[in-house]
Every structure is written in structure tokens, then in C-alpha cells.
């Protein structure tokens, strides 16, 4: 191939590459917008003029936002049983009552029985096993000693 033709071809390939790359970006953006509107909003951000009033209003966490396997609005782990736990437990109380507690499957079952006996929790039917499996898997007790180490503090320089 003579050098001149070769240069033309190279140029064409470079153009094509750019075109493909640009198309990919457009497709990716479109996909993000379709599949994960919250992520898209995070990327593109709210309109700048929205920023000031938004700072005043409480930040709203979308119910569909999931980060690192955690459903951000509730703090619950997203796994099999999550939907049932969300619909059942969060009907009456905060997700924090789940996420701050630790128990074995049997321990969680006792809590459910207590709620059924005293707090008007309904019969969970076939959802019960799903819910118990989920809770026992993700909110199981840690093995701690008689006194655990202090949690690592945020270190700061103490001034007088």
C-alpha cells in the first residue's frame, strides 16, 4: 500500500473509532438513564439553580437507590427476602430496628412470635421462612468477648 493511501485509511479508521466511541458513550448514557435513573441524576446532577433550595430541604433518598448491595433508603441488605422484609417489617417500624439488632434464626423467630402475640403482626405464611433465612444470614450475632475493643474513634488533636 502506498504511504498516501495508507494515511487515508488510517484517517478513516481514526474517524470510525471516534464515531464508535461516541456512540458507545451515548448508548451507555441512555442505558444509565433507562436502567438507573437515580445514578443518572447523580452523574448529571440537579440543575445548578436547584442546588440552593435543595440545600435547605432535607435530602431525599430514592427508594430504588442501591449501593454496594445496600438499599440506601432503609439500610437493609438487598438479597433474597429483602422485598418481603421491607413489606412486612417496615409496615410498622423503622428498618433500624432490624439493622441494629443481631440474632440467630431462632432468635429472630422469637421476635416475630412476640410481635404476632402483642403487636398485631399478621401470620407471615410462606414468607416466614424467606424472612427468617434473610435475617439469620445478614443479621446474625458477632462473636464478641466479655468486652469488645473500643470502636476506632475519629482521632483529633485536642486543643486547650
Amino acid at each position: 500500500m502506498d504511504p498516501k493511501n495508507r494515511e487515508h485509511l488510517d484517517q478513516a479508521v481514526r474517524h470510525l473509532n471516534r464515531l464508535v466511541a461516541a456512540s458507545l458513550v451515548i448508548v451507555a448514557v441512555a442505558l444509565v438513564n433507562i436502567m438507573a435513573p437515580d445514578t443518572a441524576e447523580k452523574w448529571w446532577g440537579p440543575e445548578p439553580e436547584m442546588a440552593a433550595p435543595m440545600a435547605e430541604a432535607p435530602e431525599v433518598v430514592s427508594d430504588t437507590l442501591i449501593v454496594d448491595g445496600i438499599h440506601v433508603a432503609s439500610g437493609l441488605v438487598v438479597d433474597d427476602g429483602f422485598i418481603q422484609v421491607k413489606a412486612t417489617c417496615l409496615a410498622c417500624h423503622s428498618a433500624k430496628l432490624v439493622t441494629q439488632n443481631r440474632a440467630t434464626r431462632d432468635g429472630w423467630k422469637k421476635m416475630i412470635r412476640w410481635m404476632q402475640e402483642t403487636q398485631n403482626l399478621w401470620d407471615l405464611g410462606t414468607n416466614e421462612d424467606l424472612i427468617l433465612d434473610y435475617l439469620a444470614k445478614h443479621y446474625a450475632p458477632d462473636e464478641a468477648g466479655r468486652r469488645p475493643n473500643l470502636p476506632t474513634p475519629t482521632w483529633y488533636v485536642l486543643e486547650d
Partner: protein
Amino acid sequence: MSKKRKIGIHALYAQDPIEADRQLWGRESDPQSRRGFLKQAGLAAMGMAVGGPIVFAKHMPAGLIPAVLADPAATPFALEGKHPDLVVLNDQPWNVETPAHLLDDDLTPADKFFVRNNGLVPPEFNVDQWTLTIDGEAVPEPISFTLNELKERFSEHTYALTLECGGNGRAEFNPPAKGNQWTTGAVGCAEWTGVRLRDVLEAAGVTSAAVYVGYYGKDLHLTKNPDKVVISRGIPIAKAMEDETLIAWKMNGEDIPVLNGYPLRLVVGGWPASVSGKWLTRLSVRDRVHDGPKMEAPSYRVPNHPVEPGTEVKPEDMKIIESMPVKSLITYPKTGAMIPQGKRLNLRGHAWAGDRSVQRMEVSIDFGATWQTAQLSDAPNRLAWQRWTAEVGFPEPGYYEVWARATDDAGVAQPMVVPGWNPKGYLNNATHRIAVKVTE
């Protein structure tokens, strides 16, 4: 990266709305019209989730997310009237604890006073119409006082009184106990103003049959059923007749914050704060131990005899918690302080001991191997916490923990490890610890 399956309620409905109905609610709708709930399947569950019955349920299209769940936009936990650094353990009902360094004031200000609610804050307050009724087996007949009558008829008293949740410190028990995982911050000492419970009981003609006084408040059960009592605990008549047991309407000279019982509450210093009923409307003078919700085992009860961790304890083998045990906090500095080698560190905090007073206060910088005595002030009155201060030096650079230990007037001291395990995780009065780093 997490490999967990990520699916939200919207995604589930997007995939297959009919299947989502079935999975979530056990709902099956009419296969022809695709509306309603077949054999009522799923209706109750969905009704509970949206917080009330679904009217026109038979017309509800299949595969529709109830609107209230479709947009459960969660707001961050900002609580009106409370310091933003308080730690929210639960927002439904509100349970909020105070980090130790925010409890440094002699009297805990309203915005730093912990919140332990069992139900929802009363939906409305009609203070002009607010009445307190005294009834029960041990008064001749029920008698009611309006808030103004209470203020006019009885003499006013003010005391600094320590309130601590029976479950303060629960987070350290192992095996874990269910409930709000309080660390150290379910305690505060404020100045409370009101009338003596004793004066009001005497005006109601309390008889010698009186054994217990139970309270009722206006808070709303989590199920929003107005007939369901959230919590109704009480105290033995001897504690009720003490000078410092108040029916209070002021905290630190101001209206009591709504979350802490506005406009009227009981304040019973030194006992689990659950006996200090909030949003108070009725006192029942009983001829037996009061039997309202959360008086029964295992609530606010501990085993009659020490048990091995994890033991299942029968209700009849448990006893009601009365006085809280001796305890203290390091309120200055905040944990995580870094100081240069050679500099001495000032420490301060509070100590309290339920019905007793604190007699000695000590601090250790070597994990309890040696202790030095701290300066301890008297309480302004009985059942108020006591201020302590100390100054310590450190022998070499490195990581230290400062531990604080109080001893009460009966010679009982705080344990250095978590005390006796109990099913509900009450009464953890282990020494408070903070981390300090001494730099070269």
C-alpha cells in the same frame, strides 16, 4: 463489588407485576378482570403495609404498587429540637441517644436529652383541655385535675433528677439482646419542675390499700390503634411518696420538649426511665402490682438469680428492676483525643447511683491495673448526678484508654467487664472508656 442481587420494589413490579403482587402480599387477583383480591388473599398484608384498610379493594388493579409504598422517599434523620449529633437508633418510634461528650453540661439541655419512645408521639395536644385523672382501687373515687388546677392547687417543687433507660448499655451484651442497641447515651440529668405525686395522691384520698401507682399517657401505638395502650408502667407506693417524685411540666425552666413528654409527665429519679410516664393523662392507684403493658416479664425485668449467658428465663423467675445501679461517664474529652507527650489531660464527667449517692470516683489509664482518685462534688439534691474531675499524665507515647469507675455509698462499684447477662440486656453499668493517643 458486591455480587448481591439488586432488586427494589419497583424493579420487582417492572419484571412481573402479577408475580410481584403474589410475592409481596400473597395477593391473587381475579384472572379475568385482573382486579380485586381473590379470597381476600394479600389484602390484609397490603393494608398493614400502607397503614390502613384499602377501600375499594375490589377495584384495585392487579400489579399496582400502593402509592404510599411507591414513593417512600426516606428523609435523613433530623429531629426537631434535638442536637444534630445525637445518634438515632430508631425513627419509628423515635429512640435517640446522646454521645458522652455532649453530656458535659451540669444539667442536660433539652436538645441533648435522649429520647426513648415506645410508641408514636401523640398526634395532637390540647393543653387547655389537658386533664390528669387519678383512679384505681386505692382511691375512693376517680378525680380529675386540669393542668391549670394542678399548678394552682399544689405547691411547686424543682429538683435535678437523673433519668436513665433500663436498657442503656444493651449494645455490649453477648449473646445480643433484642431492642434498641443503646451504648452509653440513654441518660440525662435535667432540672424538673412540677408538683409532688404524693400531694396529688393525698388530695385524691389515697387509701392504705395502695400498693403501686401505674401511669397512662397519650402516646399512640405503632399500629395506630388508638385503643391499644403503648406502655403503662409504674412504681411502688413508697417510691411514689418520696419528696422528689414529681408530676412535672417544666424541664430546665421551659416547657418539656414534645419528644420528652410535653405537656405533663412523671419524673422518678434513679429508676429505669420507663417508669417516668410521658404525655401523662391518668394515674391508677392500684391495690396490687400494676399490670399495664411492659410491666410483665421480660420487659424491664432481670432474672431472680444470676444466669449463664443465653439462658432462657421463665417469666416467673424474673423480677422488676427498681433502682438503677452505680454508673459514670467521661464527658470530657471526647473519645479520640490526641495530645503531645508531656502534656497532662484534664478529665471530667458525671456519676450517679440510682437511689443511692456516689461516694468515690476513680480513673485509670492502664486498663484498670491502677486507679487514681478523682474530685467528686455533692449532688445539688438527692437522685441527681454528681460532677467529677481529674487530671492524668501519660508515661510514654502510644494508645491509651481512660476508664472511669464510680463506687456508691454502699461500697458497690462499677464492674470493668459487662455485668451479669440477662435476656433483655438491662443494667449494663460497666466502666465507661475513651481512647486517647499520646503523640511524640
